[in-house]
């Protein structure tokens, strides 16, 4: 608020300086006319110099304060935008427009500069100075004043007329212009593709043709657009001629004195100048207005009623109920150990989408249980995690944590009990250590190291040029996908107090070895905690005590994993789904913990208890990362806990992969 008050003060100074400088031009003309006509002595020149010096000072003031105004306005808007973005929360930011938001909050606001530093002062000057000139002219010479008074309105009138025509022409051509204008960038970006198909040289001629078409289209609009400046120039200069010639004739007749004549000659252009200045700055300022509009559109989205998300993410909305109860600790839910999490008939909808992302899901996760969420893209797996994270709020049903409604808990305090590894973890442009410390800023370097070691990240981090102080680059550009994933995992490790672990496909996009390392690390991390893991890969699924399959937002199977061995032979290629119940299969038939088919008894390995993570990785001991990558000998002691039968019961997709891809697009962009 204080910042905004000072912005207003700076703006007032800017406008005042501009207007006073404009009025000083009148004084300057007065003095110059007096000196040139010989009415004033040469000493009046010192007055003239003083006026000029004052104008220079005002010009400096105007410029400096305009800069302050612009930075002030931009900072204030930026602050509100960024705060607003945080209120919107991850669920609503993950749309494809996030890039636009980044641009808007960054460079986009710079487009306000022209508006604030150029257009606004020009408007202020145009509002005052022509009037002052007219008043002075009326006092000096009625005939000239009338000419100026009559011609002056022509400028805005013609300006508006031409402006409207230009707008129409530009709009007619806008599409062609933007398409042709973007063509070059498009071709340059696609050059590797063109090169691969031997079309690169051919495109050179296309570029020339498109550039010609673009120029022709642009010139067509410019011919109209520049008409406005033609009209303005003609109005101003012809009016000057219109004033000067009669004055000359009246001087000849002796009905006018030279001082007045010179004053009129000097003042008349000053009546038109501010209007022209305003006109030329108008176009640039419109970009600024568009930027401001875009910013306010984001800010005003607050008021659109999207109850679920806005409640989910605005800390204030959840806090009040909890605040009364007494402190953050209480608000975080009863107890700090691994909680029991219940979903009661939860339905989640995203704004603007017809299908519910989750519909009527009921699920109870016991303390310390490890649940794998499986199913194809778009099935609602990531949404379920986001629900537990309170990035989204249930439209129907509720989520209970140790019996307390999640909505009644302070989201910050609740999230403090979670360790989350998203599907595409974002690494911040800081050091490796800084990234690992994200959820525990006070963690010592030792703790960071321990977390990294547990996540199998220590080895590569220590090989980095600056070790833990190495900057990871923007979005972790200096690290590989596997390394980024492990840093994100270390982030979760660096929160040893968090009793709930939420992992979204932690091994997606990893090659075999990185995967093994991450699986081993995850096994360790989930020890003694409640873990909900979205998994695609078997090694990860094997960690779980329980496998929940989601399809189109519904739980279609819920299987307690039982240690069992699959046949060592790999599954046949393109194994068809054995039978296909309709996707409307009620969840009731799902919790078949005993699979009806293909239970191959264990032969060469003791069946591990459901509690121990039994992966095809031999014991996930820390210190032996990627121990499975090259087993030296013999047939591997494969132990499998995945319930294959449950999988067989349910077809992957209905009409085909296409549907999955489409549906994937609806799942917060998460499940791809």
């Amino acid at each position: 608020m204080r910042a905004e008050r000072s912005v207003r003060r700076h703006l007032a100074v800017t406008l005042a300086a501009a207007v006073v400088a404009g009025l000083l031009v009148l004084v300057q003309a007065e003095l110059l006319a007096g000196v040139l006509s010989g009415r004033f002595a040469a000493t009046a020149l010192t007055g003239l110099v003083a006026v000029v010096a004052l104008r220079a000072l005002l010009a400096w003031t105007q410029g400096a304060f305009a800069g302050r105004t612009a930075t002030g306005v931009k900072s204030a808007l930026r602050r509100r935008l960024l705060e607003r973005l945080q209120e919107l929360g991850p669920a609503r930011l993950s749309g494809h427009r996030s890039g636009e938001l980044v641009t808007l909050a960054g460079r986009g606001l710079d487009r306000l500069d022209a508006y604030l530093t150029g257009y606004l002062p020009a408007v202020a000057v145009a509002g005052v100075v022509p009037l002052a000139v007219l008043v002075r002219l009326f006092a000096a010479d009625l005939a000239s004043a009338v000419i100026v008074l009559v011609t002056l309105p022509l400028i805005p009138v013609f300006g508006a007329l031409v402006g409207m025509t230009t707008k129409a022409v530009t709009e007619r051509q806008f599409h062609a212009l933007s398409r042709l204008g973007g063509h070059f960038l498009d071709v340059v970006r696609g050059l590797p593709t063109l090169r691969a198909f031997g079309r690169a040289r051919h495109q050179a001629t296309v570029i020339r043709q498109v550039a010609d078409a673009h120029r022709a289209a642009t010139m067509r609009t410019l011919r109209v657009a520049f008409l406005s400046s033609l009209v303005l120039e003609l109005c101003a200069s012809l009016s000057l001629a219109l004033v000067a010639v009669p004055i000359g004739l009246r001087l000849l007749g002796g009905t006018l004195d030279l001082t007045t004549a010179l004053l009129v000659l000097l003042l008349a252009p000053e009546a038109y100048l501010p209007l022209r200045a305003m006109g030329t700055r108008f176009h640039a300022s419109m970009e600024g207005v568009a930027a401001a509009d875009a910013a306010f559109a984001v800010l005003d989205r607050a008021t659109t009623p999207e109850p679920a998300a806005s409640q989910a993410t605005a800390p204030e909305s959840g806090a009040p109920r909890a605040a009364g109860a007494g402190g953050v600790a209480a608000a975080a839910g009863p107890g700090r150990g691994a909680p029991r999490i219940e979903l009661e008939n939860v339905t989640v909808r995203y704004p603007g989408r017809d299908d519910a992302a989750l519909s009527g899901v009921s699920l109870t996760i016991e303390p310390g249980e490890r649940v794998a969420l499986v199913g194809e893209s778009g099935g609602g797996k990531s949404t379920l995690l986001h629900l537990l994270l309170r990035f989204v709020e249930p439209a129907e049903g509720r989520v209970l944590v140790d019996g307390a409604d999640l909505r009644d808990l302070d989201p910050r305090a609740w999230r403090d009990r979670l360790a989350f590894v998203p599907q595409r973890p974002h690494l911040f442009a800081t050091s490796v250590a800084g990234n690992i410390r994200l959820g525990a800023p006070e963690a010592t370097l030792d703790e960071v190291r321990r977390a990294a070691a547990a996540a199998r990240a220590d080895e590569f981090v220590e090989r980095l040029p600056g070790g833990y102080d190495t900057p990871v680059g923007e979005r972790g550009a200096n690290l590989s996908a596997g390394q980024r994933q492990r840093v994100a995992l270390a982030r979760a490790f660096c929160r040893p107090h968090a009793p709930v672990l939420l992992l979204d496909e932690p091994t997606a996009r990893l090659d075999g070895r990185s995967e093994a390392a991450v699986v081993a690390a995850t096994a360790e991390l989930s020890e003694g905690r409640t873990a909900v893991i979205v998994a695609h890969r078997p090694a990860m699924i094997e960690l779980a005590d329980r496998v929940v399959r989601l399809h189109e937002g519904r739980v279609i199977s819920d299987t307690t994993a039982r240690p069992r061995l699959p046949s060592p032979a790999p599954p046949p290629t393109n194994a068809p789904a054995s039978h296909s119940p309709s996707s409307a299969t009620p969840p009731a038939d799902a919790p078949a913990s005993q699979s009806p088919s293909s239970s191959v008894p264990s032969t060469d390995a003791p069946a591990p208890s459901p509690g121990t993570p039994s992966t095809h990785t031999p014991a996930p001991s820390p210190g032996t990362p990627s121990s499975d990558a090259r087993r030296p000998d013999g047939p591997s002691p494969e132990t499998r806990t995945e319930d294959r039968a449950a999988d067989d019961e349910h077809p992957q997709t209905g009409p085909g992969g296409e549907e999955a891809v489409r549906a994937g697009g609806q799942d917060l962009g998460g499940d791809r």
Partner: protein
Amino acid sequence: MNRRMGLRLTWAVLAGAGADLAGLGLIAAAAWLITRAAEQPPLAALSVAIVATRAFATGKGVLRYAERLTGHDVALRAQAATREELYEALIPPRPARHGGADLLSRMVDDTEAVQDLLVRALIPAAAAVLTGLAAVVVGLFVLPVTALVLVGGLAVSGVLLPALTAAAARHWSARIAPARAALAGSVADLVHGSADLAAYGAEGRALTAALAADDDLAALERRQARVHALALAGGTLVQGLTVAAIVLLAQGAGAGSVATAVLALTALVSFEPVLPLAAAGERMAGITAALRRLKEVRTAPAAVAEPRDPAPVPAPPYTVEVEDLVVRHADAARPALDGVSLTLTPGRRVALVGPSGAGKSSLLSALMRLVEPEAGRVLVNGADIRGLASDDARTLMTGLTQDPYVFQTTLRDNLRLAGPEAGEEELTRAVREARLEQWVERTGWDAQLGEDGRTVSGGQLQRLALARALLHDPPVLLLDEPAEALDEETADRLMADLLDATRGRTTLLVTHRLRGLEGVDEIVVLEEGRVIQRGTHAELVAEPGYYRDLWESEALTRSR
């Protein structure tokens, strides 16, 4: 072409100078008319000035219009020429650089600098010089000493001030650019990392960091604004002082009121085209930087050397032999590919597998002549491909490359770029083989794709690229991770169909999915640039090692 450009530019400059001169003439004629009229000469003595005043008044507007049109026309032509030149320079493959997409956008923006250079700097500056000269000439005729003062004043505001603003702009942009990047980075962190921040309760810290970056930038921008304001004030001051000095000198020399008025008002108006040059100077700093970057791009060496006398393309069928190939990417300590050999006889299908960073894509790049090998050879029918023009080499070996691109055009054209002569039937077949037909049916052949058109998901893009490769049907088909970015089920089906479609085609397939590789003739396992295993699927599964580990792990992945 260049002479005609020069001619156009001259016209633009002349029109601009004409407009400025008309403004000068208008005020000089009016001043003369009025002061002379005050001496009450016969009317005939004024008639020329009256006509001149009106002519200049009309001419000023018309010439300004002409200047703007010719100026923009020539600038657009110059920009087009620059882009064409840039494009030609970009056709030969370049070594990959960091931040590719941003770099490209900036490069394209840079070509607009040429337009700015002409419209905002060169043409106005030339017009200002001509106008200033005219004013000085008027001064010389009337009272030479005032001409001297005017030259001084014009030089300060037209040369010194722009030079200073240009220097200041360079100085400040060097400091502002990193601050701006820091702000953009922290804003991007806030938006793209919002899930991570919220989950770990770090939103507050990230917001504070972003606002601190904003404060830094604002402080720099405020200081820059003050420098800019100083230049403005300087211009005003110089103009006023010059006029005052001229009046003083003229009156001291007893030049008479007509001469004094003409001198003073000409001087006053001659600054009008000169004063904006300070702002142009500021812009010049950006323009020169852009032009320098463009020049660097144009002169950057190509990734591969073209032979002086390219050998003719050998006749089919083609056998490709890779012998001890070593590829090192710029300044990397370890070669990406470290002595790899393999042979592709006609109809043979070879799969390359291995962890990411093993050198699989580097091998394809070497085959496509996108990188120059450090050692070893690639032979086509016994002839080294370095002897072929790289374009020719790519007609033999190409296909689905990394990072395929969707152009902003119709689906049909996006596909046809890989087969300009392809008929409807071939298009349909390629689409079917790439498992894209459902999407094409739904979207329509004439749907606009790309940025402002229909969005294309990662999987659709991959299949579009595959359809292109199949349509192009090169003698040796290269496929770089065709199932990348597809969900498991689609990927399985796609790979199965792909292995069907390529039966009998000479194919090199890079993949990290092993399913279906029973069908290929040889599998080469790469790790850290070296071949660690090779053989058929059956052989590789039978022996312990990377392949079998991966196979077993993948077998378990099957969620059905």
